[in-house]
């Protein structure tokens, strides 16, 4: 039928798809372009290639417009400027005593900052990898061995584990019994992964920026 058209032409009158009355002008313009082959009589014989180019150009321009309109509607759901401003926090480490775990709020959830004792560090470093469900050495998980900073969200279904609990003296999750050690690694229970280590940086030996 209309083989001169740039897109697959409709083969019969019925093939025209329903017109969408939406603000996505691109879609509507494209479907018009496909459908117009049905009704043109004189115009088609005059200059088919110019007509095709016009429809193609219009459809392309409209598609670009539709995409530019859609992006803000999607981006508005992304974290806003206020939330992004709170995406990193600074923690003063000096008041945290040895052996103490402090919970800080970061990005809406808990982060455990643990000032580890020598014994806790030794136990963590000495654990053989074969015992671990999610093998990671302690050195991989800390920047300074006396400071363990992990996200306080159980990797099973998201509850907050309780500190100084469980036979490894790490954490134990009250929801389904996952047990973590002094490096925050999963040792027992249904959780699949170790407690996550967030991005952090020591600004001074007693001040750390998380996130």
């Amino acid at each position, binding site marked *: 039928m209309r083989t001169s058209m740039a897109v697959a032409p409709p083969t019969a009158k019925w093939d025209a798809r329903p017109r969408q009355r939406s603000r996505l002008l691109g879609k509507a313009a494209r479907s018009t372009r496909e459908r117009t082959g049905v009704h043109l009589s004189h*115009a088609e014989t005059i200059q088919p290639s110019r007509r095709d180019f016009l429809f193609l150009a219009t459809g392309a321009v409209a598609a670009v417009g539709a995409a530019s309109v859609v992006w803000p509607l999607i981006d508005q759901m992304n974290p806003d400027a206020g939330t992004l*401003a709170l995406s990193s926090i600074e923690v003063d480490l000096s008041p945290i005593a040895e052996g103490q775990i402090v919970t800080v709020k970061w990005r809406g959830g808990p982060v455990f900052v643990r000032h580890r004792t020598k014994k806790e560090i030794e136990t963590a470093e000495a654990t053989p990898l074969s015992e671990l469900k999610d093998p990671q050495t302690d050195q991989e998980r800390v920047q300074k061995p006396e400071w363990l900073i992990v996200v306080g969200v159980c990797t099973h279904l998201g509850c907050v584990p309780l500190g100084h609990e469980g036979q490894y003296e790490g954490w134990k999750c009250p929801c389904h019994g996952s047990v973590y050690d002094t490096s925050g690694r999963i040792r027992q229970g249904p959780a699949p992964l170790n407690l996550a280590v967030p991005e952090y940086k020591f600004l001074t030996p007693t001040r750390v920026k998380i996130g």
Partner: protein
Amino acid sequence: MMTRLKTSLLAFALLVAGAGFAAAQEADQPKPPRQEWSFHGVFGRFDQAQLQRGFQVYREVCSNCHRLSIAFRTLEDPDGPGYSEAQVKTLAASYQVTNDEPNDQGKIFQRPGTPADVFPPPEAFPNDQAAAAALGKAPPDMWLLAKSRKYERGFPWFIFDIFTDYQEIGSDYIYAILTGYTHKDDPQWNLYYPGHKIAMPAPLQDGAVKYTDGTPGTVQNYAKDVAAFLSWAAEPTMVERKKIGFRAIVFLIVLSVLMYLVKRRIWADAH
């Protein structure tokens, strides 16, 4: 034709009546004159140096009584004052802000500000009631001042404003008020304030603020700069809006032309 003539005559009569009415009011309550603003018009942009000077005026003069409920981090806006991250951090830390949550002992406490915090209220007036008690009337929060103040444009100016893109009514108003204290003996008499009796006594004097970039410290300059700063504070997204708007309208005009050609092409066989 007679219909058209009659209706045109009627419209003209209304126009003349309206204009005459407006002129009579003008004399005793002058309207704020229009100023030139760098951010006016389709290609308008804020002048960074001006906004920084305006912020200095706000900080040294206005902030003693007025709140400005914007976050410190917004001062980093590259389309706005454009301060650096370090400058804003230092600025924020120089303020004491009330913490959201009480401390572990249950006490509400104050701490140095961070960029994520909002400017705290003036130290002397933590809330509107305290301000009203001390000053008679609570000074308004300045964050939307440039958008919440207006004066009657009158007919037919409000029609022209659509085409001339006049959006700076608030900025002109603020400048006019700040430079309108023309009765030296009465610091609360203002030429442009409706009714002339304004609760705020003249806040600016020549030389009150020392500019560091060489701009002369006159009341006119202070007023211009702080009005520009407040215009930014009321609408920090203005520059982004105009940039996107220009592209959007050009695009829509191009698309309209194309659509018109498509329409003509399709209707060619129907006429």
